[in-house]
C-alpha cells in the first residue's frame, strides 16, 4: 500500500513534493534526535552515585546552530507551501466553471450547459476546472484526495476550488467538515473523462448514466440510484430507522403524519415525497421525523423516480 494516494491533478505532485520534503526533514531530525538520545543514554550511563559531571550550562556555538538550522528549514517549508498554495488559489482564465451545492448529505453539480448531476461530477481531462460552491445548510467540505484539493462549503457565500485533472478515471469525493449523522456517507465520485467523451456526455450522446441503464430492469436501476443519489444516507432497506424512515415494506403501508392525518404509500405518494418532502397541501411530514429531506426536484428525472418506486416495491 502506497502512503500517498493516486495523483490525478496538476496540484497533486506539488503537494507531494512538499510532503516528501518535510518527510525527509522530519526523518533526518528524528534520527538525529533519536540517535543523540540513545547515544547519550548509553555513553553517559550512570556508573556510581559519585560520578563527576561537569556543570555545562550553555554553549553559544551549539545554541546558534540549533536555532539557525531549524529557522532556515522552517522558512524553506513555508516558502514551498506558500508558492504552491498561491498557484492553487489563482484561477485560470477561462476555466470551466461548475456550480456545486452541498446539502446534508449529498452533492449536486450544475454545468454551464444547464446539465445537472447528483453525487457524480463529470470533468474533462487536462482542462482547468473551477468549482463554485455553496451550502444549503451547515458547513461541508469538498475533498478529493486524488487531486489534493479541499475547501469548506459555506451557507450564504461562495467558496472556490481550482484544479486541472491529469488522469482519467473515477475518484472519491469526501465531505471533510463534520455535518451530522451521515457525514461519513456524504460521498460522491468524480469522473475524469477525455475531452471527446466529455463532449459526448455534454450533448447527451453517450457515457450517460441514463443510457447506461438502457437494458436494465427498472427496479435494478432504482437499486443503483438508491446509493448513487444518496438516499442511502438516510433511508435503510433493512428496517432500521435512520434519519429518514426505512424503505422496507414501505410500499402500500399506511403512513401517519405529524398532524395526525393518514395516507397510503402508493406510487403517487412516493413521487410526491421525493419531489416535495414536506408534502403538500398542508406541509405534512412523516410522524417521528424531522423535515430534513432535501427536495429532488430537477435532480431526478421522471424515469428515475419510476425506477426508485419500482425498487421500493421490491423491498418487502
Amino acid at each position: 500500500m502506497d502512503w500517498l494516494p493516486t495523483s490525478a491533478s496538476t496540484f497533486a505532485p506539488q503537494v507531494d513534493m512538499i510532503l516528501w520534503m518535510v518527510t525527509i526533514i522530519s526523518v533526518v531530525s528524528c534520527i538525529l534526535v533519536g540517535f543523540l538520545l540513545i547515544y547519550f543514554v548509553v555513553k553517559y550511563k550512570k556508573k556510581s552515585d559519585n560520578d563527576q559531571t561537569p556543570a555545562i550550562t550553555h554553549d553559544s556555538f551549539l545554541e546558534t546552530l540549533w536555532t539557525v538550522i531549524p529557522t532556515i528549514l522552517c522558512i524553506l517549508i513555508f516558502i514551498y507551501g506558500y508558492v504552491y498554495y498561491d498557484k492553487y488559489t489563482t484561477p485560470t482564465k477561462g476555466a470551466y466553471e461548475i456550480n456545486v451545492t452541498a446539502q446534508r448529505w449529498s452533492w449536486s453539480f450544475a454545468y454551464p450547459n444547464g446539465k445537472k448531476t447528483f453525487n457524480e461530477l463529470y470533468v474533462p481531462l487536462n482542462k482547468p476546472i473551477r468549482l463554485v460552491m455553496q451550502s444549503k445548510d451547515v458547513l461541508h467540505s469538498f475533498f478529493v484526495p486524488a487531486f489534493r484539493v479541499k475547501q469548506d462549503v459555506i451557507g450564504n457565500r461562495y467558496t472556490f476550488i481550482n484544479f486541472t485533472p491529469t488522469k482519467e478515471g473515477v475518484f472519491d469525493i469526501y465531505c471533510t467538515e463534520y455535518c451530522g449523522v451521515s457525514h461519513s456517507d456524504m460521498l460522491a465520485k468524480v469522473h475524469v473523462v477525455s475531452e471527446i467523451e466529455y463532449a459526448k456526455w455534454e450533448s447527451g450522446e453517450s457515457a450517460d448514466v441514463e443510457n447506461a441503464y438502457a437494458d436494465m430492469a427498472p427496479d435494478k436501476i432504482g437499486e443503483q440510484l438508491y446509493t448513487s443519489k444518496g438516499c442511502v444516507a438516510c433511508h435503510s432497506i433493512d428496517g432500521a430507522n435512520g434519519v429518514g424512515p426505512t424503505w422496507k415494506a414501505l410500499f402500500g403501508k399506511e403512513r401517519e403524519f405529524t398532524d395526525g392525518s393518514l395516507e397510503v404509500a402508493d406510487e403517487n405518494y412516493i413521487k410526491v415525497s421525493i419531489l416535495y418532502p414536506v408534502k403538500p397541501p398542508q406541509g405534512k411530514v412523516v410522524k417521528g421525523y424531522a423535515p430534513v429531506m432535501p427536495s429532488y426536484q430537477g435532480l431526478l428525472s421522471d424515469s428515475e423516480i419510476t425506477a426508485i418506486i419500482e425498487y421500493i416495491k421490491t423491498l418487502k
Partner: protein
Amino acid sequence: MASSNPYKTYLNIWLLLMFLTFITVYVAQFDFGTLNVPIALLVASIKAGVVALYFMHLKYEDSMTWIFATYPLFLLFLLIAFSATDIFTRVAN
C-alpha cells in the same frame, strides 16, 4: 494616595468626564462621515484613560500592573485586526 487632596481631584475628574460625555452626545448630531467612529472612540478612550488613571489609581501602580492592564488591549487589537483582515480581504480566488 499620592495626591494631596484626592476628593478634589476626583471632583475635577468627574467634571471632566461629564464634559466629555456632553461633547460626545453633542458631536453625534453632526455627520463627519468616516470620522464618526474615530471621534467617538477617541473621546471614549480619553474618558476611559482618565477613569483608569485616577479613579482606578493606575497612575500609582507598578509596571507589572501596567503590563497586565495594557496587554489585553493589544490582544483585543489582534483579535479584531486578524479577523477583520480575513473578512475584508476575501476576494474570490
